[in-house]
């Protein structure tokens, strides 16, 4: 059952670093995060890895495995062959702090800039009435665990540090869409999405959707509809739906 895996892990800090090779025991059913923990316990006690729930719910253990942005806790060792070298590197779009831990403060800064949710008044009986079908669109986006894999993979910022100022990234453009579709919210953020958060820089290549561990259709359900809402500020759901359907026929 158990075997020795070949792991190549990036170690270093802001000043520099490089890949180091390790041989680590792997047992049945384990994920990459288990292997890194075994490395900490037996060979490299100071190996820096960010993690929390180890169940794919908190979005802390984001890194790149063989160059692909992934959660360490949801990547099963069984998806690799036993003789394969598995390379683990920090998220490329963010500055390295140490080893596999990066400085993700860019994301928290963008979150702060979004005008907050502002609800309409409660109804006379003190409740907010909403239909399930109306809350579901925003609910899909609120499944986001803020792992920032979409932010990491997005080519607008991945190798273009200079774009970070003007571009909030898929996670926060999706947040703007979530608020825009929220049945209770009263603030119009559409122009801001375009002018301040860089919605126009997204050219819908869907890389964000591909890496989302929650399977959220970021591009199709959040970013494209948001772009359409920006174009047509007199948004009416029926018109939008009609347009979407007719476009599919083209």
């Amino acid at each position, binding site marked *: 059952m158990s075997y020795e895996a070949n792991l190549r892990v990036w170690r270093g800090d802001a000043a520099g670093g490089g890949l180091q090779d390790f041989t680590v025991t792997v047992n049945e*059913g384990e994920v990459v995060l288990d292997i890194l923990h075994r490395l900490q*316990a037996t060979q490299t*006690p100071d190996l820096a890895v960010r993690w929390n729930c180890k169940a*794919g*719910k908190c979005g*802390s253990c984001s890194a790149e495995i063989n160059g692909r942005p992934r959660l360490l806790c949801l990547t099963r060792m069984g998806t690799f062959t036993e003789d394969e070298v598995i390379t683990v590197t920090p998220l490329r779009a963010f500055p390295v702090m140490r080893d596999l831990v990066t400085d993700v403060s860019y994301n928290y800064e963008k979150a702060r800039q979004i005008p907050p949710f502002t*609800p309409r008044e409660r109804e006379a009986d003190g409740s907010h009435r909403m239909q*399930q079908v109306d809350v579901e669109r925003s609910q899909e986006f*609120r499944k986001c665990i803020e792992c920032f894999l979409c932010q990491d993979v997005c080519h607008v910022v991945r190798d273009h540090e200079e774009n970070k100022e003007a571009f909030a990234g898929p996670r926060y453009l999706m947040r703007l869409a979530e608020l825009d579709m929220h049945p209770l919210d009263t603030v119009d953020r559409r122009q801001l999405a375009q002018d301040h958060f860089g919605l126009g820089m997204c050219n819908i290549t869907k890389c964000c959707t591909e890496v989302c561990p929650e399977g959220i259709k970021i591009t199709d359900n959040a970013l494209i509809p948001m772009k359409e809402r920006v174009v047509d500020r007199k948004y009416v759901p029926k018109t939008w739906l009609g347009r979407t359907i007719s476009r599919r026929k083209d």
Partner: protein
Amino acid sequence: MTDLERHDYDVVVIGAGGAGLRAAIEAHEQGARTAVVCKSLLGKAHTVMAEGGIAAAMGNVYAQDSWKVHFRDTMRGGKMLNHWRMAQLHAQEAPDRVRELEDWGALFDRTPDGLISQRDFGGHRFARLAHVGDRTGLELIRTLQQRTVALGIDVFMECTVTRLLTAPSEQGTAGSVCGAFAYRRESGEFFALQAPSVVLATGGIGKSYTVTSNSWEYTGDGHSLALAAGASLVNMEFVQFHPTGMVWPPSVRGILVTESVRGDGGVLKNSNGNRFMFDYIPDYFRKETAETEEEADRWYTDKTNNRRPPELLPRDEVARAINSEVKAGRGSPHGGVFLDIASRRDSDYIRKRLPSMYHQFMELAEVDITSEPMEVGPTCHYVMGGVEVDPETAAAVVPGLYAAGEVAGGMHGSNRLGGNSLSDLLVFGRRAGTAAAAHAKTVSALGLPESDLEDARDVALAPFERGGGENPYTIHRELQETMNALVGIIRTAPEVEEALVKIEELKVRAKALTVLGQRRYNPGWHLALDLPNMLRVSECIARAALERQESRGGHTRDDFPGPSDKWAQINVICTQEGESISLTRKPLPVMPPELAEIFEESA
């Protein structure tokens, strides 16, 4: 320490889960200069893993529901050891706490007439849990996080508090809180927070056990900080083992499988295919539990004329039953039992109601829960014991110190009902925030004790400087194995005594912990600083478990199998003198007659 980074606030909240953020929001809104310190990034706290929902008697699905029924369910679930006043406030205030989340952007699942939907859960008479699929904790944490950011509250992310600072005391009393000493995990640099009010919201202790649903943060920091500052802990022997954790593959052993699976129709079966829970209905719950599978199955659609399925008994009952089935040789191939929803609900319903369970089993175990049963077994999930607090204000006995959420004790008695944790942290998080802000207005700032700051720094750096060679990962593993094997779901005096001997040995070895590397984001060092907390809390659990000679809720003594009338009236209190823990027995607070009537009416 003239070169130490210092900050000045009215209220400092330690922990950024639901209780911490709710306390911070309230303190801020009361006008207090407020800061939150948390070990992880904002939005990653353990609350994010809560699945099923928030218990609140809103009456949206069953109009007959009321705070009195919720209060009764909570007290009975806790086998009447709950602090009655906490359980009362909790049941009365939970609906408003849920409603205000909507004003901050939360989007709960809806009833057909557009209200917040409510689902069934173990031990609750009516469908009562406000929820979002099976990711309610994520919705709660994100809502509170976004509110915290909108209000501009300062958050010290990835920072760990290692000591509470107190002013010199009057003779015989605990000195007032005046701040906290912390380090930044990223840089290893130290800083101090000066504040007349500190709210502990650090969650639980699960990382002292091998099989647990808890994340690495759950090292009992708040329990331990409170003890060291002179506060008391109540009923630490009560540890909840959630009946349904994953058991296979080994690397995911302990990860939570939400109670909603049973709330939404799932049943437990042994290797003979029997719904064994019908064999484990205790007399205490017999009147309200279905006797036949037919009645149990009818209950999902008609609650008025049928009684609840035994799969939805409180968690302590179900966990013990699973434990017995496995011991009797009727377990599943990997040492659990079967949780089956596939044969009882259609695929679309399961994927709609339990999306993250579907995802979790698919990704981690390659099991499709819409077509095959899950294998599940008990996992260390929650500690009912915690800091002894005043119900109205969440104040500990140390002036200026407050505790809310899992770190506080009393609310849940000997066993917590599912769904009562998220409501607990909202209700008492808010109360702690209110009281902490009010306290800060009444006292003038106390200076930080310089000698304590220097000592706190020296203690934190010691693992780099001493030889001794003990590895923190090794000591941690040995502690987990000890607690899991000897102070687990079923306990006996000789085993708990053996655990205490082992803990003493580990405490000695922990003084020789040695850390390699440097201070920047060094997990080995971080663990070395968390370990003394885990050891202290584990000792409290073991000592209290030995003290209470009965079985009740989350404390089962094989050598004292039933509940005792004598112990029904006693709280076990832990305090710390120097390095040693002492225990005292304290009578339970007496419930006023008008509340006691609620139990007579329904008996």
